C-alpha cells in the first residue's frame, strides 16, 4: 500500500477509537431515566368539612362547623372505595392481578410473595382518588420464582398507556410521564407516598446496579403516570 494509504488507514483507526465509544455513549438513554414528575406543589389537599348543621344562631353568633359526633351517627362511615384488581401495561405485555399491600414489620411495604402479582399500597390513595399518589409495587425478580411481573418495567416509554381495573368493574387509564431509577439511599419516600398533589399512579420496583454484598439492587425503579 502507498504511504497515502497507510496514512488513511491510521486516520481511520484513530477516528474509530474516538467515535465508537462516543457514539455508544450518545445513543444511551438518559442514565437515570426519562420524563419528569408532574408539578407536585399544587394547592393543599382539599380540607374536608365535617357535616355541619349551623345552629339556631342568635345575633352575634357566627357559623362554626358543628356535627353530631355520636358513634352511631358517624357520617360517611368507611364507605368502601373501589380497589384495584388488575394492572395492565400493554407496551411491555404486562397484565397482572393486584392485591392489597400493607406494611411489613420493618416498616417497608409488604410486597406480595407471588412475584407474578403486584400490590396496591392500601394505606395510601386508591387509583381514582381525587388527589395524591396511588402506589403499586411488585418484585423485579425473585430467587425462587425468577423474573417478576415488573421485570420489564425499565423498557416503558413516555406516553405508554397503563390501565387499572377496579373492583367495581370500571377501568382507569393513565399515561406514563416519568420512568426513573432513584437511588434507594436517601430516597424521599414522602414524595411518592402521599395523598397530596395531583392524582397519579406510581409503580415501584427495584433496579439499577445489583450488589449482592450491599443490599442487592441499589435503586428503586419508579414509573409515574397521570390520568389520561
Amino acid at each position, binding site marked *: 500500500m502507498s504511504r497515502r494509504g*497507510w*496514512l488513511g*488507514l491510521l486516520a481511520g*483507526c*484513530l477516528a*474509530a*477509537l474516538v467515535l*465508537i*465509544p462516543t457514539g*455508544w455513549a450518545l445513543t444511551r438513554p438518559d442514565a437515570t431515566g426519562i420524563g419528569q414528575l408532574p408539578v407536585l406543589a399544587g394547592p393543599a389537599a382539599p*380540607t*374536608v*368539612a365535617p357535616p355541619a348543621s349551623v*345552629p339556631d344562631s*342568635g345575633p*352575634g*353568633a*357566627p357559623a*362554626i*362547623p*358543628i*356535627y*353530631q*359526633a*355520636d*358513634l352511631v351517627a*358517624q357520617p360517611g*362511615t368507611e364507605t368502601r372505595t373501589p380497589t384495584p384488581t388488575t394492572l395492565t401495561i400493554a407496551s411491555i405485555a404486562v397484565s397482572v392481578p393486584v392485591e392489597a399491600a*400493607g*406494611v411489613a414489620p*420493618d*416498616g*417497608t*411495604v409488604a*410486597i406480595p410473595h407471588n412475584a407474578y402479582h403486584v400490590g396496591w399500597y392500601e*394505606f395510601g390513595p386508591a387509583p381514582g382518588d381525587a388527589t395524591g399518589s396511588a402506589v403499586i*409495587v*411488585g*418484585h*423485579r*425478580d*425473585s430467587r425462587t420464582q425468577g423474573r*417478576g411481573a415488573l*421485570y420489564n418495567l*425499565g423498557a416503558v416509554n413516555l406516553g405508554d398507556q397503563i390501565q387499572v381495573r377496579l373492583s367495581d368493574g370500571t377501568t382507569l387509564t393513565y399515561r406514563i410521564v416519568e420512568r426513573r431509577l432513584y437511588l*434507594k439511599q436517601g*430516597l424521599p419516600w414522602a414524595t*411518592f*407516598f*402521599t395523598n397530596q398533589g395531583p392524582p397519579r399512579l406510581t409503580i*415501584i*420496583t*427495584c*433496579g*439499577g446496579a*445489583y450488589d*449482592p454484598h450491599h443490599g*442487592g*439492587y441499589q435503586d*428503586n425503579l419508579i414509573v409515574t403516570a397521570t390520568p389520561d
Partner: protein
Amino acid sequence: MRSLRSTALIGAALMLAPAAVLLSSSPAGAATADAQVSVFHGIPGVEVNVYVNDKITLTDFKPGAMAGPLSLPAGTYKVEVTSYAADKAAGKKTADVIGPANIPVMASHNYTIAAHLTTDGKPTATVFDNDISMLPAGKGRVTVAHIADAPTVAITANGATLIKSLSNPNSASAVVPAATYKVGVVAGGKTVYSTSLPVAAGVNTIVFAYGTYPATFAVAVQKITGLGSAPMGVPAGEAGLANDAPSFPGYAVVAMVLAVLGALVAGRRVLAGSRQA
C-alpha cells in the same frame, strides 16, 4: 349553678371566629402555627351557650355535638358555659353553668374542650391536648377519653387490654395497626359496653365516653387526620436478574481492539516511510 375545677381545666377556648374558618383537622393548622381547637358537648339533657372572652360563640349547642376545629392564635381565653334555655328565657346571658375559666392556648397544639359531668354528676369542662405526633406507616392511634359519670374502667381491643385503667377526667391512647377493632369498656371485671371502631392509618381516632352510666351513657368519636408517615422503603427485588445499565457491548470492544491494531500497523508503516524519504 356554677362549677369550676381549676385543677382540671388545662386547656383552650374559642374566640369569635371570622368568616374564614379553617375546616381541616390536620395538625399543622394555618401557616401562622395557630392552635386547632374543637369543643365537645358531653352533658346529656341540656343545650348550652358557650361564651369566649364575653362574646357568644356557640348557641343551642346540643349534647353529643362537636364544634370546630377552629384555628386560634396562641393566648389565654376566658370560657363560660350557660344554659341555652335560661339565656333564652331571660333574654340575656345568665349564670355560668361552667366557668369562667382562663385557659392558655399554645401555638400548633390541637385541643378538644369537653363539657362533661364529674363522677359526682356536676358539670365541668376538661381540655384535652390531643396527641398529633406522626404515626408509622400503616398504624393509627386510638385515644379514649373518660368523661362519664362512671367508675374507673379498663379498655380492651379485640379482647386484649388496650388501656389498663382509665378514670374521669383522663384520656389514654395507644398506637395500633390500622384495622377495625372490637373495643370494650370493662368495669368491675365485666364488659359493660362494646362497639366496633375503625382505626385508620395516619389518624388519631378519639373516643369520648360520656354521660351518666348507665342511664345516659354514650360514646362519641373525633378524628384527627394527616398524621401518617411514608413507609421506609420498597424492597422489590432480590436476584439481580435485571440489567438497567448495559455495559459497553462486546462487538464494540472487538472493533476497538482491531482499530488499535490497525493504528499500530499503519503508524509503523507511515513512520517507516517517513524515515526512508
